[in-house]
């Protein structure tokens, strides 16, 4: 990466950080319009940087720009919107656009699975809980964020650090060209899965997509992980049921318990 693009990238992140800071709920001081302006500038700068990484644009490139823009914008709204319901809905948008990006990465199965699991199940329960616990007006803890400046600075410095490194992936290392744009039927990327170095080759076209490959990978190499996930799900189910069946009395704020260091003074140590 040339220094110019790197600085442009940093500039994009600085703009984005400022945008997120302005959009974060800070009571009266919130300025979503200003934040949106900064964010727009950041996105443009980012797309300028990323466009240098595109070698031959095709229709997947446009899809990429479309969905990544939606994803980032929706993600910003997830963390900045004062109403949790909207956060959840924007998060669904993030999931859908990320799934679209996954499809571009030839991971259709995971994409649809993410939609089914996240949008179809998890977010519905989130909405359920949000609606059950919703206040009539926006409560104070939703209209004010905590330490917005520090958090944004820390988060965006980290983001810049990771993204700068990630943007340096050499195109030559990519295995198996984007098959979808060249062949009508999907192309299976074959790999023994055991090597770290990219060794994939384009195999004969199959009509089954990558579901079969993911399935084979999950059922053979990662079968223990699969079993453990099953157990984990069961444990979570039992835990959630046990928790939610418990009737707890409503209580107010209570004074903090005496600190541990005081126990010897007020209570006999034996």
């Amino acid at each position: 990466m040339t220094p110019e693009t790197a600085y442009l990238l940093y500039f994009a992140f600085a703009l984005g950080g400022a945008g997120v800071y302005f959009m974060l709920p800070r009571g009266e001081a919130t300025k979503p319009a200003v934040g949106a302006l900064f964010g727009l500038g950041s996105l443009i700068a980012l797309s300028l940087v990323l466009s240098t990484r595109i070698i031959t644009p095709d229709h997947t490139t446009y899809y990429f720009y479309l969905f990544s823009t939606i994803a980032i914008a929706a993600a910003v709204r997830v963390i900045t919107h004062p109403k949790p319901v909207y956060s959840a809905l924007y998060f669904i948008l993030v999931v859908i656009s990320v799934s679209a990006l996954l499809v571009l990465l030839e991971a259709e199965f995971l994409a649809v699975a993410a939609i089914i699991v996240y949008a179809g199940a998890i977010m519905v329960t989130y909405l359920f809980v949000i609606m059950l616990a919703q206040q009539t007006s926006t409560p104070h803890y939703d209209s004010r964020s905590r330490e917005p400046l520090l958090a944004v600075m820390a988060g965006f410095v980290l983001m810049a650090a990771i993204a700068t490194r990630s943007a340096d992936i050499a195109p030559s290392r990519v295995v198996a060209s984007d098959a979808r744009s060249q062949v009508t039927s999907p192309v299976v990327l074959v790999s023994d899965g055991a090597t770290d170095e990219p060794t994939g080759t384009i195999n004969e076209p199959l009509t089954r997509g990558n579901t079969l490959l993911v399935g084979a990978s999950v059922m053979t190499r990662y079968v223990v992980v699969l079993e453990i996930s099953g157990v984990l799900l069961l444990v979570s189910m039992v835990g959630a049921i046990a928790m939610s069946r418990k009737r707890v009395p409503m209580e107010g704020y209570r004074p903090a318990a005496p600190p541990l260091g005081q126990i010897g003074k007020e209570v006999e140590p034996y």
Partner: protein
Amino acid sequence: MSIETLKLCGLVILLAPLAGAILAGGLGPRVFRSRSHWPVLLGVGSAFVAAIVLFREVYTAPVGETLAKIPLYEWIAASTNARFNVELLIDPLTAIMLVTVTGISLLVVIYSRDYMRDHGQPERGYERFFAYLGLFVFAMCTLVLGGNFLLLYLGWEAVGLCSYLLIGFYYDKPSAAAAAKKAFLVNRVGDFGFGLGILLIYISFGTLEYAAVFDMVQERLLASGEPLTDGRLSAIALCLLAGACGKSAQLPLHVWLPDAMEGPSPVSALIHAATMVTAGIFMIARCGAIFAASPLAMTVIAVIGATTALFAATIALVQTDMKRVLAYSTISQLGYMFLGIGVYAADSAVFHLFTHAFFKALLFLGAGSVMHAMGGVIDMRQFGGLRKVIPWTFMTFVIGSLALSGVPGFAGFFSKDEIIHHALSAHWLLGGIGLLTALLTAFYTFCMVFMAFSGPERIPEGVHAHESGGWMIFSLLVLSVGAIGAGYLGVGGKVFHHFLEPVFAETFAAHMPTHGAVHAVAHQSFWQAYGLMVISGSLAFIGIIGAYVMYVRQPWIPGLVRASARGTYDTLWNKYFVDEAYQAGIVEPAKKTGELCVGLDNYFIDGLIWTVTAIPRGLGYLARTLQGGAMQGYGLSMVAGVTVIVLLVFWCQ
């Protein structure tokens, strides 16, 4: 003698009572309820059967092959040369002890089935009682069967624990709880010495296995190869003796036994006849090699035994509580046994232990039956003339009393006579004390019989006196047969002593100063042997007649005696003020020391500690301000840290 049979028998003897105890204790409250005696009864019963089989195996074994060591498994392997096995040692002594222990225990369990009921309904803690009984038998059998000092110690302590549990069976009664505590604490004193003795043995000989230890004692050799000095041997023997004194209630440590009456009567019978107190005698007999080799220890044993016998008999003269009289008589008889061992007549002592088990169990169970009939009253002054009310109890009680008194023809006569005989041939004073004690024994025993059973019928107010249930009478009858017949096994040193000979031949008999007991008896003239029998028999009759005169014919005499010898009477009534002396000499100073220690701990040591803790507490107070409690605060510092690390890593590449 088949090892396999012995092993099986040994395991049954150990495990059947334990299984019974676990079943009764675990399933009793829910499953067995009022049938909780069955598991223990069956367990102890099968142990008894196994003991009989084991006895037969040992008895029929050819001469010279009566000893078997049966290792079961490795128990503790602390290091390469500190390995302790769970192993059984079976010899004639073990066989006799096992038959006695399991037999008496079986009868006690049978007896308890009716005794622990109130109008047919089981008492509270019925299943607990039987569980403890089974555990007691298991502990005692472990003690007897164990093949090394460690198992002996295990059984020793377990017996102590069970006695604690059973004496304190009515734990909501303060006196019972106190008695249990007292028994436990006094035993601890003895056990401390016993533990020291075992440690000394291990240090000296590097092993705890009986055979190895005894061989080294015979060879007068230490594990280090140095010769075994008399001093060290005596130290070991005296330490062990302390334990024996504690368990067998000998003089300085006898105070717990009379108080142990707070437990139910079957427990008393069990403790006095079969399990607890015989442990000390058994231990000394088992460790004959150690004791017999130390003349000092033997002398101490003889003196302690003679003193205790006389001392306890005099106290028993004035006690009015039936069970208390019996308790002191037990101490006295145990004194006889110690005396017997002290004069190198261990076979006679074990014989006396054997016969004593029958008639003492009989007497205690009889006393329990009286108590049962009298609605819990045991003070003899409150009742009399019971022979018509509870005829079966009366009959068996009299048989037991005759045996205890040493009336010729009954079990006690033969064994006691033997001990007195050996004592006389050792020293005239010991023998004299023995004879005097025999007289006193007959006297106080029959005082008790006459006070309770003769004269006009007197029953405490509001008590519906009735004969006890069939299970109790059955036990009493069986024990009466034993009280009459057990003595004939040892007539003229024939069956019993011959059977035990292999055990003691190389220990007590070999070390006897006057060329061995058997020789002494054999070389005595007809008149010497039978004259003594006549004398002791007459003493028994004199004692009985004296009691008859004083309590039936001329009942004013006791009052006169009491008034004329006020000081002596008070001393006896207060048991020579031993308890008071302990209270003033040991308990109070100990309490004072404890209070001093508490003060020291609270103010000095705690103050020191609090001063030290004040420093980290102060530091923690400062550090606490960093912990806001909100996880997002922590998360922020975490992210900041991660960011710094990531940046560093990227820049340094």
